[in-house]
């Protein structure tokens, strides 16, 4: 049976842990492996951090997170209505960062791609960014 949830939270860094807890609690009844849980939590953390740092750049805004779980696959969408990404292909490259002043590694998309089965990014300048990710649970 399909299960889903949708939440919206302020673009504050303390909500990165909140988003991780939400996805963990949602997946827990499906009894994922420790490995699967950790990978998915990490990918969610990266996507939410992207929305907060890059989408809103420290300004006020809301991050939307929705997830759907069917028989064996989790589908996660994390979106913001922030500034959008100029060049998605460049942003997805390892070590790419628009914030060399900060201690940012530029590994966010690389981690999402390594830890999830599929990662899709849709972004429009001035309108926002949506990251969609899927991961098959083998349990």
């Amino acid at each position, binding site marked *: 049976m399909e299960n889903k949830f949708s939440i919206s939270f302020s673009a504050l860094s*303390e909500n990165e842990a909140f988003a*991780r807890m939400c996805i963990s609690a949602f997946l827990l009844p499906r009894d994922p492996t*420790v490995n699967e849980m*950790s990978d998915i939590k990490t990918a969610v*953390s*990266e996507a939410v951090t992207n929305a907060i740092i890059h989408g809103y750049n420290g300004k006020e805004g809301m991050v939307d997170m929705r997830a759907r779980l069917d028989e064996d696959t989790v589908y996660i969408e994390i979106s913001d209505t922030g500034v959008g990404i100029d060049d998605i292909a460049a942003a997805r490259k390892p070590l790419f960062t628009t914030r060399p002043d900060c201690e*940012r590694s530029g590994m966010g998309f*690389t981690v999402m791609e390594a830890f999830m089965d599929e990662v899709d990014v849709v972004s429009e300048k001035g309108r926002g960014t949506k990251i969609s990710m899927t991961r098959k649970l083998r349990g």
Partner: protein
Amino acid sequence: MNIKYKKDGATLLVRLGGDIDHHTAQEISDGITRSFRRSRCKNIVIDFADVSFMDSSGVGMLIGRYKETEIFGGSLAAVAVSGELMKIFTLSGLNKIIDCYDNARLALAALRGE
């Protein structure tokens, strides 16, 4: 997040506890930098035994500390890196610049050249 410091000769031993993400990484970086400068040590050993989560924000934090030890001709080492954390270490190449040890005793001995 909690951080404990202990000095052992030329090495500052840092024990981190909790989650390392964008929210906590800055506080950790600032805390370690402050203690490292005050300690006059040249090496930093970070113990991850009590770290429950780390995303790529931790990579930036560690590269920053690696550069600080480099200035003093020292090294940065990591201890008790779990399998999950090691995936981030390997993916980012951190494992190529930071030596990893099972426990603090082994890391300290290696840095003393034993």
